[in-house]
């Protein structure tokens, strides 16, 4: 696609978006809620097409995609979408006639005429939400698909068009090479930009954006798990199963994938048992939802980190490597809390720490990059520990097994979902 073509598409979307302004929020939520319901249906045309086409571009196997979608979309209902809009924009219905009252003011939340959405990665759910969020705000969308996933945005756009042709005319795609600065400049002529991607991508976009242009960005993040380890005699198999699900889904390529499980407790056997249980469950996950092939660089990183762990073990440290014959999954029980590389692709480190103070100390260096933390086993300390995680920088604390199914309203990056894409204004009386 050329810069001129992108400009033309933006122009067309700007025109189409004007018709969108006349439609009510309740109407749009009804259509987009129905679209979500369609996506939740495993037998829908869109789900079937996605499951058929996504493996070729992402490397994810079909069973993994099916399990990941089923798990993540279960809570993404039309009701949840309405609740999200209500929470952030005010009560649906009231919003139209009398937007959210705040004492003697009327607060208006209006979408920009056009929103450019720069997509990243290969996981369908963030793409789905990134595309419908501006539409809720009556902003037309021009999306640049991620190189690894040209499939999801196309199918989401088609599903919207099928549900509502007029709404479908307000979303279009602009596939181009991410290094093409001229195309990026054209895309950035949109009124608002919502981008996900690496820190380098975000920095490049910021450098090209107009002064004062609304640019909402989600950079790379990591997630963690922390569990109070029971003794070996009372190991919780169900816990390892749920953690394995968090690790296996999307092969740790999403920001909600844990890269470290902190085993909190002063009994070493607890961490050892957890590592063994995790290994068994990841082996089971491999049978149910095979990871699939990885590129040579990913394989090299896994092999290197395994070998380095083996050497630490050979040097007498209490390090244990559990792994498959191939690079399909790896569990490394570490002897210390030093931060080490995360090769991803189902490579997890179990890091023993003695107590909560040591846990927070170990997590602190990751505070600025934290997305979510899964907590379990802390009893009546769970609430205060969860608050500490939020203060550290996490935007979500949940139970193991739930990391990959965030609610629609999850404040990713510590922000609201819809409001950052809107212009707010007060009408004072």
């Amino acid at each position, binding site marked *: 696609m050329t810069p001129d073509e992108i400009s033309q598409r933006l122009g067309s979307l700007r025109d189409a978006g004007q018709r969108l302004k006349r439609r009510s929020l309740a109407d749009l939520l009804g259509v987009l809620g129905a679209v979500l319901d369609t996506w939740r249906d495993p037998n829908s045309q869109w789900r079937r097409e996605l499951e058929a086409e996504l493996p070729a571009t992402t490397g994810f196997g079909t069973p993994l995609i099916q399990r990941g979608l089923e798990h993540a979309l279960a809570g993404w209902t039309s009701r949840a979408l309405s609740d999200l809009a209500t929470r952030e924009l005010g009560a649906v219905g009231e919003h139209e006639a009398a937007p959210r009252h705040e004492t003697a003011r009327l607060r208006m939340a209006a979408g920009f005429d056009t929103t450019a959405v720069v997509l990243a990665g290969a996981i369908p759910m963030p793409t789905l939400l990134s595309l419908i969020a501006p539409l809720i705000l009556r902003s037309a969308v021009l999306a640049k698909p991620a190189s690894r996933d040209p499939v999801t945005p196309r199918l989401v756009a088609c599903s919207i068009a099928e549900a509502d042709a007029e709404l479908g005319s307000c979303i279009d795609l602009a596939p181009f090479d991410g290094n093409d600065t001229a195309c990026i400049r054209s895309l950035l002529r949109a009124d608002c930009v919502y981008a996900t991607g690496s820190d380098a991508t975000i920095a490049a976009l910021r450098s090209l954006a107009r002064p004062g242009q609304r640019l909402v960005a989600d950079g790379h993040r990591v997630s963690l798990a922390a569990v109070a380890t029971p003794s070996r005699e009372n190991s919780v198999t169900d816990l390892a199963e749920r953690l394995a699900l968090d690790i296996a889904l999307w092969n740790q390529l999403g920001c909600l994938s844990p890269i470290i499980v902190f085993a909190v407790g002063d009994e070493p056997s607890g961490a050892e048992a957890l590592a063994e249980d995790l290994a068994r469950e990841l082996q089971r996950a491999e049978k149910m939802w095979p990871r699939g092939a990885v590129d040579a660089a990913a394989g090299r990183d896994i*092999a290197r980190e395994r070998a380095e762990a083996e050497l630490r073990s050979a040097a007498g440290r209490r390090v244990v490597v559990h792994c498959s014959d191939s690079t399909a999954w790896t569990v490394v029980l570490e002897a210390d809390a030093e931060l080490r590389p995360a090769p991803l692709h189902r490579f997890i480190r179990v890091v023993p720490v003695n107590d909560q103070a040591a846990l927070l100390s170990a997590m602190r260096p990751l505070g600025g990059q934290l997305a979510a933390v899964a907590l379990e086993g802390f009893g009546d300390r769970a609430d205060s520990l969860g608050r500490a995680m939020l203060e550290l920088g996490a935007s979500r604390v949940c139970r193991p097994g739930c990391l990959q199914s965030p609610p629609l309203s999850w404040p990713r990056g510590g922000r609201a979902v819809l409001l950052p894409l809107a212009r707010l204004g007060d009408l004072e009386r």
Partner: protein
Amino acid sequence: MSGDPGRSEIDGRVLAWMREPEWNYDEARFEQLALELFAFQFEHCEVFRRFCEGRGQTPSTIEGWRRIPAVPAGAFKEVELRSFPSEATTHRFRTSGTSTSVRGTLHLDTLELYEASLLPTFRRFVFPEMTTPLDRAAIRVLAPPPDQEPDSSLSHMFGVALAELGAAGSSFDVDDGVLQVDLLLTSLVESAASESPVALCGTAFAFVHLIDHLVRRGVLVGLPPASRVMETGGFKGRSREMPPAALYAELKRVLGIPAERIVNQYGMTELGSQFYDSVLRAPSEPRRKLGPPWARVVIIDPDTGHEAATGHVGTIVVIDLANTGSVLALQTGDLGRAVLDGFEVVGRGPGAEERGCSIAADELLGREFP
């Protein structure tokens, strides 16, 4: 040479190979020496022994040198890998790293093999026209001298090369961490005027520094046709990066040295031997990395741990007989593929921490360019 009789015996045979005037890639000889060295290191380096046992490989069960377990280069940051008593340590070379990262250490009880390996290899691939040990060439080194950077294997290598192969006027052009641009430029202009070829050696980042200086001054130097560049290393942690193709284009534009006379060296602190681009040695053949007979490269499929199919990309593993004091099998952080009798580096991944020893030198240069 080492005080251990068994090690001295192996060292002696490896040194004899290194000192032979003609290179002979004798597979049986390499196999014999590699397995003997493996057995020695298995016995004398406890960490390596346990590592190999964990991999199910011992001197009595191993099925050839290609199966010797390779230690990841990054391990030198966390464990001491030496096959001699710690009190026998005479030198320590440190790997590159940023101010926030841990640097690995290579412990050595002798530099004899290191130097015996580097010289004939350097001469063969950077100065293939040298036919006698007395031949010399003008060499300018864009790196600190070894007395200013004693823990840099790169500076040590350049020091040896300069002392043994450098003609009058050869010198280091980094002093106290600062590239001596004026002195170097004067020398380069004289070389151009007198049609005297010069060999410029240094890290890729040092050449970027030099190019930036010359461009700022609006200076283009047309060095004589027989001049050459030997560059090594990447840009880890540097604020300014330049892809190799762009660097080579700039070297041609600013210094007049075309790509076919630019040799990339592939080496790292943890290795006693180095590999070089074939361009000067075999100019009519595809560019590839070649090394000496006593160091071999195997491309490993990381998913299987076995040798990758011909032409497929895998992890570069080096088996280096010059590494008698540490471990002979090293798993690099780089990907590569076999090309004819050599290999090519496919690209140093963003996760790779081992990038040769160039960055330590670059850090010093970086002082001038915050």
